[in-house]
């Protein structure tokens, strides 16, 4: 029986989940017969099954709910919010009971009269909305005696059968009567119904036993016949194994003598009705429908039903454990396959080569198929949301629509489980904090109904899930106040931040504190937890909001976790797996010369194509002490990208890429943030899988001078989009200055007493040419003592900025407050490590070093001899302020648009541009959207467009091209942008000439 109970529990829990969302749908589509039928059916089945399993509480609650649903189905009740609330309340009670049943193996003691009485009132049409709040059980006298005689001896089925038998006996006695059979059938039901009401105390006025008997008397039954009926009924009860005492108790209610010939209301007067299939009205056999009755299904719905029927017969229910085992076995197979392939590589010519290749292929296909079985529609994680939103709306007095799309988008069930809670939290947040009360919305000129949108779609090996609402959005001033109040930032720090940056505080630990707790959202989960959970599965979350218009979360998650491609690296003789998805490229460096590796304030950085990457040695991170033997001849830099944060990891050796099976790390090792899992290599050895996110956090952490900054660094690495690596230095006065690391070509240290003088300028021999040296004031550098020199390059030219001291490399805010003109050499100020710091303008120094040639050379170098008009679309003020002077310097006339919508407006206003440079990641319309929109317009379909992004993977590039961009460059490489502009423009001219 235990087994049966378990199966019942599993099956019922599944059915109940479906019911939740269906009920909410019903409220919106009250006239949908299929929906109603489906809901009724589930409740009905629960009721029916519980009777068998001896679960009277469940049965009674389900029964009462079913009655309400039945009345709705029969058109006697209309679907109201109250009705749905009541049925949902019943559903909750059923769930509670089921939960206790699952633990204890039996129903708990207790009463469900509160729920049942309300449902009964509703079914009887006595419902007044106010009663929902009122404490229940006002008429305890009316309670059913569920565990009484009636149920104990067998309930409806027993009485039905006994009445059937008794009536059958009567029929053989009166067989000459042609109407007798139908009449007796009705008698059978009337009698069974009468016993039900008499013995359970329910007060259905039309069906008391005395009334039935009176009806029979009215039809001309003799007292003998009545006695015979009573006797046969008693006999039937006995054959159905009812104990003698109980038979006597039942018969005592069958008082033949009470019958009065004049009695009224023959129950048998009910007209027999034609087929009235309980779920969905049968169009062919249905009786003429009463006015309120729901209409027969639309043909389309029937087709859909047929289709789903076909689909259903093609599916098979498989236990999750079986699937998990299958997956494990496939993982083993993949490992063995890898092992065999590795052996094969070692032996060269082998007769096993061909069959192994086949095995290899089949294994991959099998792996793919098994992964497929783990895929589940994301809608499974959404099933509870309609109910949640509905209840939220009721509780808060808001009108909220939940619109879901892409529910059939499939992803691995493990990932599905991981995002279920974060999604629920975000939707709840939207309903609670986002959507305004109807009156507020009306005042704001919005429709009373707020909308929460939930969508999912595939995008390049990932799933993109969006949660957005058209509510009030985030009030930046409130976030600002709370961030300060909770000690997450100082007032000065926040003053230097953009609106969007301030909004990101919602993801910071310690933000969602007591002040925000409401009965709805304040359940101890903050957005920091949401973010952590999503990042745990290799996903990313971004947030954007416009006050008054709404908020949007965009979540990017991988399709599967189980098997990934990984680069195997070695460090001090130990191997590790690095997920391939984060690896950008590999660089081999001779460990003696360490060419390209430079030290900045003790922190190594690597110059990769004129871009400086922070470097971190894996051996340092993992604290693997140096082995005694010789250091390797060469080292490798694994260039890694996490978000827009690029850094290099130093390892000793690099091996092949392998498909690895990700296994969770032991519970005892889970605190180590640098590992995301464990795997077994082809040769059978166990290795740890490195977690790029964890390493990124640790790297930016180690690049900071103070331990206090560690938390900030973690937060910074999470907010890669908003920060950039800055070199902080001192020159001239005591104030620290900064320059984006990406703009520094090299860092040198030289004794300036050896510098030469060339005319007005100070120069030094550098890499085979003369490099002008300037001081922070732009004047030729003084030739005194040792100084660090920041080397800037532009085209073929170089310039060395002599500074007093390099302080550090830190993550700096992208928000740059523009001050003065470019003349001053200061681009603006930014908050860096909590202090307002001047960000210098490298172009200024390059020009100072040789003003005469710079403009000319640059223009020639980039082919911009006549003023070209550039529209720069960029939401980050930092990049705007960084790029605009550069573009101007290179001879372009620059117009700025702060977002794609503004760009569209400018374009449509009639302005002409020779080229459009647009950021990709922007709130609202993205750069892709902008390109697609413009490409669809006659005037802009051929204008060159260059995409600007902090990500520049081949996929991004391809996507950019498909959206209509001519080129795609990374933001942090301004020179690449200039080169691209000149190339695109010349191609464009060439094309025009050819066309002409």
């Amino acid at each position: 029986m235990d087994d049966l109970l378990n199966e019942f529990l599993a099956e019922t829990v599944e059915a109940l989940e479906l019911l939740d969302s269906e009920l909410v749908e019903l409220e919106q589509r009250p006239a949908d017969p299929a929906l109603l039928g489906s809901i009724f059916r589930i409740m009905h089945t629960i009721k029916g099954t519980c009777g068998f399993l001896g679960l009277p509480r469940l049965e009674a609650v389900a029964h009462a709910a079913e009655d309400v649903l039945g009345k709705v189905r029969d058109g006697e009740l209309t679907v109201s919010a109250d009705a749905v609330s009541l049925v949902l309340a019943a559903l909750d009670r059923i769930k509670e009971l089921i939960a206790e049943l699952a633990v204890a193996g039996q129903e708990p003691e207790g009463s469900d009269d509160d729920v049942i009485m309300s449902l009964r009132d509703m079914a009887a049409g006595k419902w007044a909305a106010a009663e929902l709040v009122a404490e229940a059980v006002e008429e305890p006298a009316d309670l059913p005696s569920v565990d009484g005689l009636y149920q104990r001896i067998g309930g409806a089925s027993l009485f039905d059968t006994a009445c059937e038998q008794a009536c059958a006996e009567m029929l053989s006695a009166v067989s000459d009567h042609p109407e007798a059979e139908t009449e007796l059938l009705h008698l059978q039901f009337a009698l069974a119904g009468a016993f039900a009401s008499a013995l359970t105390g329910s007060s259905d006025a039309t069906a008391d036993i005395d009334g039935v008997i009176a009806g029979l008397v009215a039809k001309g039954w003799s007292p003998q016949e009545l006695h015979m009926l009573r006797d046969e009924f008693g006999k039937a009860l006995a054959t159905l194994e009812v104990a003698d005492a109980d038979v006597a108790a039942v018969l005592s209610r069958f008082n033949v003598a009470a019958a009065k010939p004049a009695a009224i209301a023959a129950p048998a007067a009910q007209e027999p009705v034609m087929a009235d299939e309980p779920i969905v009205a049968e169009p062919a056999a249905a009786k003429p429908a009463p006015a309120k009755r729901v209409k027969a299904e639309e043909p389309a719905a029937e087709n859909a039903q047929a289709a789903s029927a076909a689909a259903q017969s093609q599916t098979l229910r498989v236990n999750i454990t079986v699937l998990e085992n299958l997956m494990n076995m496939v993982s083993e197979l993949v490992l063995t396959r890898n092992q065999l392939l590795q052996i094969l590589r070692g032996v060269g010519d082998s007769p096993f080569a061909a069959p192994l290749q086949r095995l290899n292929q089949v294994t991959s296909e099998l792996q793919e198929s098994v992964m497929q079985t783990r895929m589940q529609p994301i809608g499974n994680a959404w099933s509870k949301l309609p109910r949640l939103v509905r209840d939220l709306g009721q509780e808060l007095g808001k009108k909220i629509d939940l619109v879901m799309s892409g529910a059939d988008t499939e992803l691995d069930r493990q990932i599905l489980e991981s995002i279920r809670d974060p999604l629920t939290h975000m939707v709840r947040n939207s309903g609670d904090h986002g959507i305004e009360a109807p009156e507020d919305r009306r005042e704001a000129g919005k429709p009373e109904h707020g909308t929460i949108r939930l969508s999912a779609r595939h995008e390049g090996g990932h799933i993109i899930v969006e949660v957005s609402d058209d509510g009030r959005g985030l009030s930046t001033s409130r976030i600002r106040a709370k961030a300060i109040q909770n000690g997450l930032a100082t007032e000065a720090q926040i003053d230097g931040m953009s609106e969007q940056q301030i909004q990101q505080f919602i993801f910071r630990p310690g933000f969602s504190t007591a002040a925000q707790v409401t009965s709805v959202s304040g359940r101890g989960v903050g957005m920091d937890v949401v973010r952590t959970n999503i990042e745990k599965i290799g996903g990313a979350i971004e947030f954007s909001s416009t006050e008054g218009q709404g908020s949007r979360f965009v979540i990017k998650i991988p399709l599967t976790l189980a098997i990934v491609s990984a680069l195997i690296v070695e460090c001090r003789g130990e191997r590790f797996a690095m997920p391939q998805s984060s690896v950008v490229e590999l660089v081999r460096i001779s460990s003696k010369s360490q060419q390209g590796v430079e030290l900045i304030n003790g922190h190594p950085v690597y110059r990769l194509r004129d871009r400086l990457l922070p470097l971190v040695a894996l051996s340092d991170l993992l604290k693997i002490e140096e082995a005694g033997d010789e250091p390797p001849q060469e080292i490798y830099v694994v260039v890694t990208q996490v978000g827009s944060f690029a850094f290099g990891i130093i390892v000793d050796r690099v091996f092949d890429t392998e498909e690895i099976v990700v296994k969770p790390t032991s519970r005892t090792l889970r605190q180590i943030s640098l590992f995301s899992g464990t795997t077994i290599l082809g040769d059978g050895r166990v290795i740890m899988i490195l977690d790029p996110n964890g390493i990124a956090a640790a790297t930016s952490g180690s690049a900071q001078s103070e331990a206090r900054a560690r938390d900030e660094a973690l937060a910074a690495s999470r907010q890669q989009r908003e920060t950039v690596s800055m070199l902080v230095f001192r020159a001239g006065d005591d104030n620290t200055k900064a320059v984006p690391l990406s703009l520094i070509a090299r860092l040198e240290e030289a004794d300036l007493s050896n510098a030469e003088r060339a005319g007005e300028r100070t120069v030094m021999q550098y890499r085979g040419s003369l490099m002008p040296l300037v001081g922070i004031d732009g004047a030729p550098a003084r030739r005194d003592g040792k100084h660090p020199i920041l080397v800037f390059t532009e085209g073929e030219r170089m310039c060395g900025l002599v500074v007093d001291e390099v302080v550090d490399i830190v993550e700096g805010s992208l928000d740059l407050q523009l001050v003065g003109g470019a003349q001053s050499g200061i681009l603006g100020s930014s908050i860096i490590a909590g202090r307002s710091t001047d960000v210098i303008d490298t172009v200024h120094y390059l020009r100072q070093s040789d003003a005469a040639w710079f403009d000319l050379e640059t223009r020639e170098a980039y082919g911009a001899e006549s003023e070209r008009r550039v529209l720069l679309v960029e939401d980050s003020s930092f990049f705007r302020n960084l790029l605009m002077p550069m573009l101007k310097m290179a001879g372009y006339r620059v117009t700025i648009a702060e977002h794609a919508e503004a760009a569209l407006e400018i374009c449509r206003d009639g302005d002409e541009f020779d080229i459009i440079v647009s950021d990709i990641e922007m709130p609202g319309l993205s750069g892709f959207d902008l390109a697609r929109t413009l490409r669809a317009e006659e005037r802009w379909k051929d204008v060159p467009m260059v995409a600007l992004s902090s990500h520049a993977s081949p996929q991004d590039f391809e996507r950019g091209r498909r959206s209509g961009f001519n080129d795609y460059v990374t933001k942090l490489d301004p020179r690449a942008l200039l080169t691209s502009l000149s190339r695109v423009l010349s191609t464009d001219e060439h094309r025009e000439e050819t066309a002409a």
Partner: protein
Amino acid sequence: MVDMKMPILIVDDYRTMLRIVHNLLAKLGFTDIDEASDGSQALAMMKGRDYGLVISDWNMQPMTGFELLKSVRADQHLKATPFIMVTAESKVENVVAARQAGVNNYIIKPFSAAVLKAKLKTVLGEF
């Protein structure tokens, strides 16, 4: 006499119910019991095997017990198969409808072995 070895098909889309009815039939002494999880599957199974009795739930999706009953009665080869409908509703109009569609009897859920036996007797005779 009822042949206790005759094949019986029980149809329900709730696995728990299938198990319950299966157990009850076994308790009454029947030995050859097949299960189907919906009307269309049942129909396919009936075409492959001669069942001495079909016990079907009324409320199923996508093909209901009522539709199954009508299909069975419309099929030249299957139409004589005894058919018992299981329902949780004791509404006279449903029974009348089922009767008209040719059901041999019906059982109201939940039921005991004794009730099942009594119902089987009305369809199959004494056993």
